[in-house]
């Protein structure tokens, strides 16, 4: 195995662009997924079984099917249905958002339900409304507990964003595949991609553990 450094040098700018898109896709996915996930999580917690059912189905579907299937469906079927054409980046962001929303909804629900019910009772016994109690008593405590699993989900999302290469969104893995196609080399592109993913996920878990430690001492 002799590494051809010159083709790596040639592809370096593409890997850089791809890495930026990978970060962008993951960030967009986690941000949109968090907002959506909060609503879906709250929806699933509704007492009325009929109203909470659709949210339960949503979560079951997105957690119970492969993301590869989801991205194909969204790229080739859902996006064209609404826009008349395909758009790889839009499909990738949509898939990552919808998929992570399902996991984040469950993280929210578990976080909220992990707070002792005496907290809600104390707040309500003081005359606070359910919304006030949620906002000032339950959610601040729940958020703290949700940071580790949310960080985990973010790391998973960075890795899963590589599936976007299969619908030709020019992220990191896409350029790895392009390099293999052009030079019929496998070690250079995929080791490089693996190392870059590793740097991304390790940096993120480093930041998260710092954040957790800071919140723990607060």
């Amino acid at each position: 195995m002799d590494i051809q450094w010159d083709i790596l040098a040639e592809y370096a700018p593409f890997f850089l662009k791809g890495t930026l898109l990978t970060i962008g896709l993951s960030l967009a996915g986690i941000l949109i997924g968090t907002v959506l996930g909060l609503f879906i999580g709250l929806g699933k917690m509704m007492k009325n079984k009929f109203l909470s059912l659709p949210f339960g189905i949503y979560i079951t579907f997105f957690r119970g099917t492969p993301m590869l299937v989801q991205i194909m469906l969204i790229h080739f079927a859902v996006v064209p249905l609404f826009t008349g054409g395909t758009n790889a980046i839009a499909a990738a962001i949509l898939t990552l958002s919808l998929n992570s929303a399902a996991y984040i909804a469950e993280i929210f629900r578990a976080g909220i339900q992990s707070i002792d019910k005496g907290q809600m009772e104390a707040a309500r016994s003081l005359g606070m409304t359910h919304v006030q109690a949620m906002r000032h008593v339950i959610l601040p405590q729940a958020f703290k507990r949700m940071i580790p699993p949310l960080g985990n989900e973010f790391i998973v999302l960075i890795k899963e964003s590589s599936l976007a290469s299969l619908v030709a969104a020019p992220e990191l893995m896409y350029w790895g595949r392009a390099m293999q196609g052009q030079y019929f080399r496998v070690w250079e592109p995929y080791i490089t991609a693996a190392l870059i993913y590793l740097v991304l996920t390790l940096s993120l878990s480093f930041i998260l553990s710092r954040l957790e430690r800071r919140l723990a001492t607060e």
Partner: protein
Amino acid sequence: MIEVKNLKKSFGTNEVLKDINVTVKSQEVVVVIGPSGSGKSTFLRCINLLESITDGHVYIEGIDITDKKTDINKVRTEVGMVFQQFNLFPHKKVIENIMLAPMQVRNTSAEEARKKALELLRKVGLEDKAEAFPDSLSGGQKQRVAIARALAMEPKIMLFDEPTSALDPEMVGEVLEVMKQLAKEGMTMVVVTHEMGFAKEVGDRVIFMDGGLIVEENTPIELFDHPKEDRTKAFLSKVL
């Protein structure tokens, strides 16, 4: 002040309260005793609707809280509650625990709320703990903060559910002392407790509950020294 009429409460098919009738007058201190599982907590929690009521009526100052049109949040501001497990908000400082509800519910300014909170902390002897977090306090201190927090809403009635049961014995006294002071100031109180000394000293009336019913009800002296019912006698012989 409080009027409970034919109160019934079931959890599923388990009837926990069976036809409870109680009247508590203004400035009265009523102590509720009874064996574990007799429905004491459930009774107390029905008075501020932390438990939904299956049947019957509860009137707080003439307002029927079982009426769907009643604004329960408004009623709850008049009825403070102190829990066995304190239920302080761990992410907020002691003073913030006390300021939160007045600011949210009554729109009291932060300045005003802080002033009032410090006053209350002085009253329970914890002025120096204002900026501490609840986790750094002892059980007795936590419970005194919880009492101050409830008082911040200036309630007309205070409910206590075994406020000293989770405390180490040496801390029971400091909490009872605060409660006695409250009683002396004329607060209307319903207290579930096993502290018979407290019941005798400040209780105007003692209610003995068993199996979801009020078995006997009398002044502390009469009930403790001359219980009429066998069940009361059996219970008292175990706890006294």
